């Protein structure tokens, strides 16, 4: 009976593991979430009646550096997944650690940027640019923060005697999906907010 129940838990008519399917459905819903926020930013673009305005504040070179950091964290994440799937656990742990560090550096860039903007007088309630910018990039940063905590929990879990168990590859792959999604959202945000002139 127990064996039958266990088997039933994993069998799916789609041939895809339920946990993997859940993550992809979640990411599809996240597309709608960020799509709405990006739409709001674009609708408000050029509508601010008082400054500071994007052209006065946005620092493209610095943000390019943080974009590079997040891009590299995707590379280390996929290498961590590769390590877990091929039972190269040292490779997995080192790359997981590198991803956590790179994600934290990205958050550091964001904290510095927000602090600088506040010093220049841009608050959430200052103008439409402030409200839509902080909402969009802040919620993206929150996603990065949650991702860092998620990866730290996996790194701690992998240090236990049994590691991440027999599903280590799958667990890492699901975490990797979340992390890469955060990266692709930033690819879009970077182009729309920073590179395209307002």
């Amino acid at each position, binding site marked *: 009976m127990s064996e039958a129940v266990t*088997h039933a838990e*994993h*069998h*799916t008519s*789609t*041939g*895809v*593991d339920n946990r*993997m*399917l859940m993550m*992809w459905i979640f990411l*599809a*819903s*996240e*597309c*709608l979430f*960020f*799509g*709405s926020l*990006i*739409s*709001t930013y*674009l*609708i408000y*673009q*050029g*509508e601010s*009646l008082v400054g500071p305005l994007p052209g006065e504040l946005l620092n*493209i*070179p610095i943000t*390019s550096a943080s*974009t*590079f950091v997040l*891009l590299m964290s*995707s*590379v280390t*994440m*996929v*290498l961590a997944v*590769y390590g877990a*799937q091929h039972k190269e656990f040292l490779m997995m742990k080192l790359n997981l650690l590198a991803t956590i560090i790179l994600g934290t550096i990205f958050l550091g860039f964001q904290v510095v940027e927000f602090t600088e903007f506040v010093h220049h007088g841009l608050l959430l309630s200052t103008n*439409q640019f402030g409200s839509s910018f902080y909402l969009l990039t802040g919620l993206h940063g929150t996603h990065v923060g949650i991702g860092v905590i998620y990866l730290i929990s996996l790194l701690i879990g992998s240090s236990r005697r049994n590691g991440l168990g027999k*599903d280590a*590859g*799958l667990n890492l*792959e699901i975490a*990797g*999906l979340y992390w*890469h*999604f955060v*990266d*692709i959202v930033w*690819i*879009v945000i970077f*182009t729309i907010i*920073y*590179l*395209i*002139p*307002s």
Partner: protein
Amino acid sequence: MSTEAQTTESHGSPLTPRDYIKIGLILTVITIVELIASYVELGALLIPILLFLSLVKFVAVVALFMHLKYEARILTQMFVMGAVLATCILIGLLYLFRNDPTDALGGVDPASGGHAARIWIGHYLHI
């Protein structure tokens, strides 16, 4: 399908660590090109070029790093559906506000051109 078979299926990517690093380098080069393009005077071509390069990076990460290229088709359908709906929301909202005669967003003089977003999205989508 057994758990073992499912696990094997999710390992379907033939890419090696060297491939992943190469892809990372290519994405970095694209980012540098985007950065250079944003400083060069490209006129009306700038936005399509930047959106295209952004799309290339987006697809590369989803297909190769997220292994969607090697996964079951239902996952691709699932994700594409979300991405397409998000794009529809974006276009729909911009269209809605572009055609708002009251300009309820904040008294911008219509003669000044109104929303920058309306201008560039509207220009390229002819809406």
